[in-house]
């Protein structure tokens, strides 16, 4: 297993380089112009000058190499400097956003807290409620609990977050006034009262997202459990006198986890990609908001950097999932 993990990690490097190239080419090919948001009153000659100042006049391969150097060489140095107070990166050009003209990574670091609070928390909550619901629904298939669970999760999945979010705001912010409708990103948790406020402003976005995540995961959990509950080994386990709890929670659950692990591992990088619509509805302004804003403004360095970080996480979680498969089912062999 160890050799497998090491080999996969090494192989990930060329994969990621290739992915970054494809992303770059895709962004180059996509129509759009960083000057799209500049008012029409600005004459074309000025716009041309502004494009040149962004470095758009340079040939494509030069720009790609520049990004590679900045991302893989300069940015780690900046991180190192930051951690140990050294000065390796001084005077070196970092990946700069075209919108803010500031280092992209600085903004990413700024956005991570609110993203983790909202999207991360909702994912954890989603998983934690999805697993028991999925297991119990399968164990008591077609019971009232299962029917309600199915119904709620299907509603949760089929009604888009732009609607549930607004609905919650209208009910809980406008009519009842319980929760703030706009997330305060400058809020800092220092004592109990500020913690309560943080929970209040988290309540609605987390609920919306958790419902959506839980719906999806619980469906896969239920289906996979159902497949396994009828297997011969379950009968064997029962026949040899194991308690019902041990049969379901140990034998069946472990064997049912493979698709669920896949789904959870697929969703985890999404946490860092943010939840574009929910962030927009509640003004959380996390990484999802940053990415969509950058795409709309054709801020290519930001889009490239964010997408690449995202790709990194996808590859990483994929490896984790593969390792977990091997642990869950020792029969799976990779070498």
């Amino acid at each position, binding site marked *: 297993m160890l050799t497998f993990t090491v080999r996969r990690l090494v*192989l990930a490097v060329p*994969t990621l380089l*290739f*992915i970054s190239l*494809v*992303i770059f080419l*895709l*962004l180059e*090919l*996509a*129509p*759009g112009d960083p000057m799209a948001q500049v008012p029409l009153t600005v004459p074309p000659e000025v716009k041309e000058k502004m494009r040149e100042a962004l470095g758009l006049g340079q040939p494509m391969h030069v720009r790609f190499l520049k990004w590679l150097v900045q991302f893989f060489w300069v940015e780690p140095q900046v991180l190192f400097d930051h951690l140990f107070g050294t000065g390796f990166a001084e005077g070196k050009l970092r990946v700069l956003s075209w919108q803010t003209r500031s280092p992209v990574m600085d903004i990413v670091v700024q956005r991570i807290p609110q993203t983790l609070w909202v999207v991360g928390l909702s994912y954890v909550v989603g998983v934690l409620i999805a697993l028991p619901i999925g297991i119990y629904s399968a164990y*008591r*298939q*077609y019971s009232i609990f299962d029917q309600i669970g*199915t*119904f709620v999760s*299907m*509603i949760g*999945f*089929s*009604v*888009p977050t*732009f*609607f549930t979010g*607004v*609905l919650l705001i*209208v009910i809980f912010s*406008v009519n009842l006034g319980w929760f703030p409708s706009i997330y305060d990103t400058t809020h800092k948790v220092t004592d109990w009262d500020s913690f309560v406020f943080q929970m209040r402003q988290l309540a609605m976005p987390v609920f919306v997202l958790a419902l959506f995540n839980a719906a999806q995961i619980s*469906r*896969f959990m239920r*289906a*996979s459990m*159902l*497949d396994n*509950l*009828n297997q011969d080994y379950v009968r064997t386990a029962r026949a040899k006198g194991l308690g019902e709890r041990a049969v379901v929670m140990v034998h069946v659950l472990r064997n049912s986890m*493979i*698709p669920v*692990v*896949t*789904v959870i591992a*697929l969703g985890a*990088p999404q946490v860092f990609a943010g939840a574009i619509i929910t962030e927009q509805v509640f003004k959380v302004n996390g990484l999802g908001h940053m990415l*969509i804003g950058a*795409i709309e403004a054709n801020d290519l360095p930001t*889009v490239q950097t964010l*997408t*690449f970080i*995202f*790709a990194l996480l*996808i*590859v990483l979680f*994929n490896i984790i*999932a593969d390792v977990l*498969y091997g642990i869950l*089912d020792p*029969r*799976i*062999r990779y070498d």
Partner: protein
Amino acid sequence: MTDDTNVNPIGALSDPMPSAPPRSQWVAVWQQFKTHKGALLGGIIFVIILLAVTIGPWIWPYDPTYIDIRARNQGPTFAHPLGTDQLGRDTLARMMAGGQVSVAVGITAMLLALVLGSFIGVLAGFFRRLDGPLMRLTDLFLALPLLPLLLVMVLLFRDPLNAAFGPETGIFILIVCAIGVTSWMPTARIVRGDVLALKEREFVLAARSIGTKNAQMIIRHILPNVLSPIMVSATLGIANAIITESALSFLGLGFPPDFPTWGRLLFDATDYLQQYPERVFWPGLAISLTVLSVNYLGDGLRDALDPRIRGR
């Protein structure tokens, strides 16, 4: 888990006398399907939705794009049972016309994603040599930013498709492909994970030992056993496709703006949530009903196709 009573203790020991000629497999599947009430109900609702959106517009006198500005923002009346929108267009007519597009896009895009995802997932899980390249391809697609990808697809293919199939079919093909191509990856990963575990199981070993060819192995032994995650992907896929379509039209990448779809109706109505809540209700209900009915249909089908459950 429904019925485990009425088992004759000595029934297993005596040879039953065949009372009728053996039923074909499909009859058995149908027999099993019929007993699943949820599936039956789901099927009926789904058929009703299909009929409403296909035949409905022929019967209903209003044109979904006809604007009657004097009749705008009406609540339910006899002439307009579901009311009218902010331009005075009949909501029922728009729901039916929108349903045609949404259901068609939802189902075709879901099928495309499903076929593509299952194909790649099975290949990657079954053939070790293909696993690496195919999964890296999946990683790549997962990593690509959706919006620029769609913009590029529109840029490259809209005009050729319009020229070849006419504007409406052209854009339909484009949207279905766009959604299909960008949503097959989860299915592929899930199917692969299951296949990895399945192919080490005893029955696969047994099948191999009697000389089963790879193609046979996949079709007879592997696919039926990964059916349930595929079914779940399918139900989630329809909802996903309908919603994605609305996001696409919202971004100006989808159907022309006067072309109603459920997702779009829902999106447009969100602004009017407080004044006219019913406008949000209808498209929301339609999407949920479709997804729910497909879900139960899928449940029933899976049970009916599973020989271990069938006949219990």
